[in-house]
């Protein structure tokens, strides 16, 4: 009983960590621009796909992973510069629709270049499961959870302890005031795209040895990351983390104890409940003050 529970819990936390990274990506861009970037899932997919490609091209794993994070962040910056920046003054809703368009383009290009097949990335440190309390845990799970935790700590440090991080936060609190103290707010905008793409791609790289990847794997990962961000309260970093873990664990428990056919439905049931009863999410601190 306990072993089974632990098994589900661990797999939930593992996938939840990926959702949390995706949710952090949504959060960073939302904070910088109030835009919900629906191409976030594609950054995750790009991370996984590119890691596979670079590894198959003969790069050593660490380098392949690094490149699989850098390239998507460049794509993120490019997307901000070419797609979002030119329509900066448009309605938020329009920009959100444009991000959906950008996600279709990214997905299409990947499908054309790499095909529709599923790809596998080898685990970082073998495939011998570790037993904890009767549950068998894949070593890759520890990579996912450990690196995600490091990223969360790193982001926390960046946004609470460095002037650059605080300048990005300040821009999200009050754009005009940020410009008046000399913060280049368009730099903040593309920086937030680069960072959220990098964080998303990292999540994609980490989880690919467990889940495999294909050109369309970003859709579900992105949507669940979005659910996680909303559940946690859009704009809250802690909320994204908790939301991601909650969605992941709920999904794993649902798949284990109910039926795996409900696996994908549960996060969306959760978002409905949250929107009914806690419209600002669990940690939703930001009041809507825009007119």
């Amino acid at each position, binding site marked *: 009983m306990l072993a089974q529970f632990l098994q589900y819990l661990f797999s939930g936390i593992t996938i939840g960590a990926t959702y949390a990274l995706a949710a952090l990506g949504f959060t960073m861009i939302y904070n910088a621009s109030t835009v919900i970037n629906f191409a976030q899932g594609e950054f995750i997919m790009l991370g996984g796909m590119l890691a596979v490609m670079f590894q198959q091209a003969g790069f050593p794993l660490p380098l392949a992973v690094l490149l699989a994070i850098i390239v998507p962040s460049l794509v993120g910056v490019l997307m901000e510069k070419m797609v979002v920046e030119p329509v900066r003054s448009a309605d938020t809703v329009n920009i959100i629709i444009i991000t959906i368009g950008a996600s279709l383009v990214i997905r299409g290009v990947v499908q054309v270049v790499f095909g529709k097949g599923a790809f596998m990335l080898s685990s970082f440190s073998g495939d011998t499961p570790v037993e904890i309390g009767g549950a068998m845990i894949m070593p890759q799970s520890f990579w996912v959870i450990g690196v995600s935790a490091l990223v969360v700590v790193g982001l926390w440090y960046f946004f609470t302890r460095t002037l650059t991080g*605080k300048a990005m*936060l300040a821009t999200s*609190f*009050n754009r*005009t*005031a*940020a410009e*008046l*103290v*000399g913060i280049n707010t368009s730099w903040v905008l593309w920086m937030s795209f680069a960072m959220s793409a990098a964080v998303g791609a990292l999540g994609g790289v980490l989880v690919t040895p467990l889940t495999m990847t294909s050109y369309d794997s970003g859709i579900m990962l992105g949507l669940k990351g979005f659910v996680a961000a909303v559940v946690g309260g859009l704009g809250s970093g802690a909320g994204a983390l908790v939301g991601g873990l909650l969605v992941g664990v709920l999904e794993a428990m649902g798949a284990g104890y109910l039926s795996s056919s409900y696996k994908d439905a549960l996060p969306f049931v959760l978002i409905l409940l949250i929107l009914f009863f806690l419209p600002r999410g669990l940690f939703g601190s930001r009041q809507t003050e825009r007119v």
Partner: protein
Amino acid sequence: MSIPETPAPLLAVSGLESCYGRIKALKGVSLEVASGELVALVGANGAGKTTFLRTLSGVQPASAGQILFAGEAIERLRPEQRVRRGICQSPEGRQVFGPLSIEDNLRLGGYTRSAAEVSEDLDKIYQLFPVLRDKRRLAAGTLSGGQQQMVAIGRALMGRPRLLLLDEPSMGLAPLMVEEVFAVIRRLRAEGMTILLVEQNAFGALALADRGYVLETGTITLTGSGAELLQNEQVRAAYLGL
């Protein structure tokens, strides 16, 4: 009343226009501020005072006209480039970064300055506003209006302004607090700071100022020394209620 003559003013604005959509908020404003001067810009609500300061800082685009700052045309520069040249603003409604601490707010005010300058200036700001030192770890949004105004002014000062723009620093404050804010402005002026003060509180502002301008629906209608404007019948009737 003699006005101190300087060869070239620090700020020379000519024919400045700015629009919100099709509505022209500034219809060709010309104004000068000499180095070391305190100039008051007064006018009714909606006259365009805030728009004028926003256009000077670059957060509101100018549609026509020229802004010369220290001899350089700056009307096409981005806001942060203007801050780097020394135009710092304490905006209307204070606009502090509410969730961030007072100290973070002040440090961000020195975003364009070096770390050494920031720690030096931080000390000066705390001397100017001792109450902020005691509360420096508190979120700025939790402060009273008057204290938030201090944060906003302190934040602007942290940028080492050559020209300090103050937008309605007395708005919404208790009378005692208004007095305190004006005392700070007097002190800054005595230290040689060049200040452009926008106020609805025309009496307080003109009493402080070397010179004043009256702005009405986007146009400068009157100008003169602070004392002259205080005596002007038109000003007394329209803005002082006398």
